[in-house]
Each structure stands twice: as C-alpha cells, then as structure tokens.
C-alpha cells in the first residue's frame, strides 16, 4: 500500500441525494464536525477502526441467527462506521410526525375493534377492510389499558429526492432492532470515540427505563406500580431476534420467559419458579399473535401459553403490544393512514406517505392500470406468490401481462412510484461508496408517547441495492441526533 489517500475526498455520489454531501460535493452542515474528523483517513485507518468495531460486537455476542443455515449460525449485523446525522430542528419535526402517527394508529385500532366508525364514515371502505390482512376477531370488543395498542412502534422512514422524510412502512406488532441502536452506540464509543462532537449527540441510554415505565403503566388496575411484575416472552434461543429479547430483559432487569415457563390458573398468569408459582402482571411479548395461546390460535403452537388470551381479556394481565395490531400495519391500510390521521386527530399529517395506489380502491385501480409503466407493482400480501414488477424496467409485453393480472385480481396488488432515496457514505473494504439507507425510529407509548432520539439506520448491501433488510446482507449504522445548535 502506498501513501494513504483521503477516502472522503474520493467519494462519488449516486443519482439520488446523499445525506453527507450536497450536489456540489460540499459537506452538509450537520456533518461538518464528522467531515473534519475523518479528513485524511485512508484505507488503513478505516480498516483498523472497522476491525475494532467488528471485534467488539462479536465478543459481545451482538448477533442475529441466520435461518437458512442448518447449524443456526449466528452472524454479526454488518456495522458501518460513518453515522447518519440528524439536526435538532429536523428531528423535532420527525418526532412530532411520529407521535402524531402513532396516536392516530391507536385511535384507529380502538375504533376498528369496537364501533368501526371509520368504516361507517367512509374513511376505510368495507371492501378495503375485508381485503386487508391482520384483522383479528379475538381482539373484538376489548379495549386494553389506557386505550393503547401500539405500545412500541417502529416506523420506517426514507428521505426522498426532495429531502423530505416519508413513512415507508408502519410496524406495530413486534418491531425489532432497538437493541442494535443501543449496541451500535456502545460500539462507536469503544471503537471511534474521537469521531463524536463532545456533548452534542443525544444519548440513547434512556430506552430501557422508558420501556419499563411504560410496561408498568399499563398494568392491571388491581396491582400497584411497586408490585407490578413485568416479563418478556420470547419464542426462544432459535429466534432471529433472541439477542434483542435477552438484551432488553437484562437492561430492564426483568425475567425473560418462554411459553413453558408460564401457566394460567383462574385467568391469572404465573411464573413457574423454584419456590412455587409467582404472579405476572405485564407481558412484553415478542411472540406473534397466532402463537400466543394454543386454545384460541394455532393449537400446535408450543411457544404460547394455554389460557393467556382469556386472562388478557379479563384484564388480569396486560399484553404488549396488543393482540390484533396487524390490521394497522397492513400494506393496503397503509395507503389510508394519512386519511386516518385527518379523521381522528383533525390534523394534517406531518410525515407524508410514499405515494401508494391500492387495487381494492376503484380510483386507485384506474390509476394503476393507466400508469403501470411508470410504477412499481407489489403483491398486497406476502402469501400471493406474485412477483414485483418494476414498470420502468419492463417490456411492453410484461406490462400488458401485469395489467391483466391486476384486472383479474385487483385486491392482490398495490403500486408505488420507483423511489430514489438518500444514501450515506459506507466503507466497502477499499473505499467509501454511497449506500441507500432507511431509518427506523422507535416510539414508546403509555399515557404519552416518547421517541428514542434517532433510531436504527439500516443500509443496503451494495451501491446498486434498494433493499436494506439484514436478511439480504444489509447492515446498520449509528444514528446521531444533534442537540440544540450546530445544524442547518
């Protein structure tokens, strides 16, 4: 290796916007400090720091389980050193938008499982509701404590060509990833403490306390806050997010349990302890609805607890997140969330959706049929087995064929424009390259909502990819929310 070059100076952008650099290659204000610290870093510097960061995560067992592998191999989530940086004003707006969205989703869920006024008033048509997945009859007629369903929400955001943050997807069932936010920060502070602007980055350490406070706040009426016993229910060590379940239990000091550790007697839930049975009041479950209780859902499930749903509905135990939330993060319902916000809150959405047209809606269907050549066509649910059609990259014959399929089965499809979203510089082993990235902030809601500053920034596996999922080889970055001044 010769004289090390400055990798930052050799960076070249993609067609879409970049988080760190403006169009002319100037470093944006929020990244000014970082740019100054990274100036002069060559390949060897990045290698050394990357190796330190990877070793930190490997030794700490910060891993996820790869399912395809017979051996159940654990991998570290590829970690990338250059963080996403968000200014304070910019963040305040995102925060307000997230709180607003979660409030509307909770109102929507409470309505859907009781009076369904939104259907009577035409916000969601009966057809759309009928075609959506995730509606759970077992949740009907029951309102959980404080009227909260989506206690923990992970709302995926992207930043579009114009620099605007848009909601790509709502996750209000059992969103994961928050442990990586906390561990990524720890790794950054261990491996590259010198990159941090002293005292200017908002801490993420508060999450476990906020989570525990929320769990206690939704306890059954019959128990005091001091006596409340909360637990985390995990499917077990083979689950890909097991690290996170264990991490959160450790950070909050609560018991991590599996279905076989719990037993229900007389609508009350107990732990099987060495000294006898001990009462449980709040369950933060990381087990999907259909596996929770073999008496009401899948009878073959060994992950759940017989009688749990009955105990829940009798108010003797709180379940977090609530049962039935799948309807709120359904792909078709997503299209109508801006209307849902206006309807329940009487406010304009702060964070817009990505434009979406759904086959079940007559006007949308006409738009899809007419503009298919410019759109990305997606199956409305995973079980359809139909592939994705990218209009701008397809032949006339392929588009015509897709059109026929949509006409034959309109409710099976949604369509969106091809979305260019922002990139962040990422070290690829030899140089810095632009990688597309999304952001999953986490919102914790009890009587009020609290947003963890930042969230999980996920990056695609290479410069070409638009997919940021860890199962597709994507990685993650630390996310810095700057405090107060020092931003654009």
């Amino acid at each position, binding site marked *: 290796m010769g004289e090390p070059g400055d990798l930052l100076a050799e960076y070249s952008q993609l067609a879409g916007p970049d988080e760190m650099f403006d169009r002319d290659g100037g470093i944006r204000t929020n990244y000014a400090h970082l740019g100054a610290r990274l100036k002069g870093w060559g390949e060897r510097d990045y290698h050394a720091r990357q190796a330190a960061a990877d070793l930190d995560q490997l030794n700490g*067992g910060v891993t996820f389980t790869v399912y395809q592998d017979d051996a159940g191999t654990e991998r570290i989530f590829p970690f990338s050193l250059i963080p996403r940086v968000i200014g304070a004003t910019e963040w305040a707006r995102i925060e307000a938008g997230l709180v607003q969205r979660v409030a509307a989703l909770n109102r929507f869920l409470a309505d859907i499982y009781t009076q369904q006024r939104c259907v009577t008033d035409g916000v969601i048509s009966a057809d759309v509701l009928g075609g959506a997945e995730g509606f759970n009859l077992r949740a009907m007629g029951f309102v959980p404590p404080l009227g909260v369903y989506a206690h923990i929400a992970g709302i995926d955001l992207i930043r579009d060509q114009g620099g605007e943050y848009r909601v790509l997807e709502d996750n209000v069932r059992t969103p994961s990833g928050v442990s990586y936010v906390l561990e990524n920060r720890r790794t950054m502070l261990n491996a590259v403490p010198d990159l941090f602007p002293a005292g200017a980055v908002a801490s993420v350490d508060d999450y476990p306390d906020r989570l525990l406070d929320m769990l206690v706040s939704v306890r059954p009426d019959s128990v005091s806050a001091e006596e409340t016993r909360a637990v985390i229910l995990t499917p077990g060590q083979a689950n890909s997010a097991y690290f996170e379940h264990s*991490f959160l239990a450790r950070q909050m000091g609560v018991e991590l349990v*599996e279905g076989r550790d719990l037993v229900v007697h007389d609508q009350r839930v107990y732990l099987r302890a060495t000294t006898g049975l001990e009462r449980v009041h709040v369950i933060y479950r990381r087990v999907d609805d259909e596996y929770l209780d073999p008496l009401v859902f899948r009878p073959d499930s060994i992950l759940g607890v017989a009688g749990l749903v009955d105990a829940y509905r009798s108010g003797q135990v709180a379940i977090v997140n609530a049962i039935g939330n799948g309807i709120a993060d359904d792909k078709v319902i997503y299209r109508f969330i801006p209307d849902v916000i206006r309807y329940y809150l009487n406010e304009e959405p702060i964070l817009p959706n990505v434009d979406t047209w759904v086959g079940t809606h007559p006007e949308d269907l006409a738009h899809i049929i007419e503009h298919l050549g410019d759109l990305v066509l997606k199956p409305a649910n995973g079980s359809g087995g139909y592939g994705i059609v990218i209009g701008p990259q397809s032949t006339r014959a392929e588009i015509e064929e897709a059109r026929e399929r949509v006409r034959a089965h309109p409710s099976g499809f949604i369509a969106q424009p091809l979305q260019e979203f922002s990139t962040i510089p990422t070290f690829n082993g030899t140089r810095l390259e632009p990688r597309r990235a999304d952001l999953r902030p986490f919102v914790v809601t009890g009587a009020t909502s609290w947003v963890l500053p930042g969230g999980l920034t996920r990056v695609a596996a290479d410069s070409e990819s638009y997919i940021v999922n860890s199962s597709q080889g994507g990685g993650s970055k630390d996310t810095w929310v700057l405090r107060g001044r020092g931003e654009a």
Partner: protein
Amino acid sequence: MLSRVAENLYWLGRYLERAENVARLAAVNYRASVEERSPDEDEAVLWDALVQAIGSDAAYAEAAGSERDLSSGEWLIFSARNPGSLVSTITRARGLARELREHISREVFEEINLLYLASDESAASRGLRSYTATVQRGVAATMGLYDNTVLFDEGGEWLRCGMFIERADMTSRIIDAKYYMLLPSLADVDGPLDRYHWLAILRSASAHEAFRKRYRGSIRGTRVAELLMLDSAFPRSLRFCVSALERHYKLATAGTPRMRALPVARELALMDLELGSTSTGDIMTSGLHEFLREFQVRVNRVHTTITDEIFHAVPASMP
C-alpha cells in the same frame, strides 16, 4: 427464580467445571506423552485411560470404528461428534450462557463467548497444549468474574451446586481410573516408576503443590488417596466438594418448600458426616473401587433428585 433458569445455571456450572477438568486431564496426559514413560506404555494407552475415565469409551469405540485416523486425544478434545468432547462442552456452556444473558453479567458472558470463539476449527491447528491452557484460564477467569460481578443470589448458588457436584464426580473418576495403581502400593516400596505415576495423578487433580504442603516426605499411595478423598481443606477432594455442595444447596433452597428440599439436604448431610468420620485405611480395607462406585451412584442420585424435585416439579398448591 424461574425453574428453567435455575436448572440452566446449574448446568452452566457443571459444564464449566467439566471443561476445566477435561482440559487439565488432557494437559497432564500430554505432558506424560512427551516426557519419559515406561517402555511398555504407549501414548494411546494414556489417552485411552482418560477416555475411560470420563465415561465415553463405548462412543469412542464406535466412532473410531468408522474413522480410522481418529485418535482418542482428538476424540476427547476436538471432536464435534463427541458430545462430551472439550469443544462440545464449551459450545454447550456458551449456548446456556447465551440463554442466561440477563442472569449473568456482560463480563461473564464475554469471557465464555471468547472461549467459544477460540473453540472453532482452528483450535486443533493451534495445538492441544495451547487450547487446553486457554480453556483452563478461561474457566478460571469466568468463575472469578462471576464471583465479582454477579449478585450473590439463588442463581449463583445453583451455579455453584452444579460446579461442585461435577467436581465431586470428576475427582472420583480420576481416582477410580487409577485405583488399580493405588492398591498394590500399600505394601510396595516406592520405586521411581511409582513416583512418576503418583505425580501424574496429583497433577490430574491440581493437587501436586497441595500435597507437598500437606505431607513431608515421599509420595505414597495412601497419602495421595487421603488428600484426594478426605482432606477437608483441599478444594477438589470428595469431602470438600460434598461439604460445599451441602452449603450451597441449603442457600439455593432457602425459599423452597421444605418437603421438596429435604431429601437432598438429608442425603448430603449424611454423606458429609460419613466422609468426615472414615479413614483411608477403612476405605482400602473394604475396597477402594467399590467405595468410589457407591460414591458416584449417590452423587448421581442427588443430581436426579434435584432435577425432579426442584427444577421439574410442578408446584402443587397455589400461592
């Protein structure tokens, strides 16, 4: 404490102790195999004795039948196909540690995880001595960190119960594997060959230096047997292990309904009393091998009763 968690901690203690014992035995064997040994004794014999001592000789015979080059040393240390090998034991301990992360400190998990990361395919290529040394140091560091970074609560008592029951079992097996050597020595004069064997046995139990402190003069079979079985201050002796087990079991079951905790408590008290009131001479007279077999059976019964009565019992009454 959750029954499943208590049982996992107990097994974590067992696996860590087992790993340390196997590593130590292998290191002693390795030393014996490179140092002088009697001409009629080849290296394989040393290892075979070890395989026999940790109770996997039948499984080894089967594996060696299908894999001609498999030496007993490889089988014992590096073979992933041997569920009792050192590598497998570490892997299991680490699996439990991962499941127990919210009950052990980050430091303890990281230490066990480091051991696991050192137990991959490259372990064999770095050499047996280097690997066993890593394991011995790693287990010692883990236990030290456990003592200094984890709450002294019920969970810690179960871990120590697991540790001492495993150690009691291991020490009795180490003595038993060489009992035939101990017997004739009662009458024999100490030749150089015998001394060499005594040293190997003492080293197998990390007892060499303790022996020197305890006894002046030459190494004799009766003294070795006394130290390893009945000495109340030597931390690997049968008596020490039983006393420690009794103490930690009492602490672990402080909140357990009396009727469920009592059978094991009574048996341990009895064993402790017996070991405190017998002598090496008595044991030799009535049969060392028989004594050791009975000891192992009783230890195993204690294990089974703890599992059934404490870990797997469905509580009969409501709180």
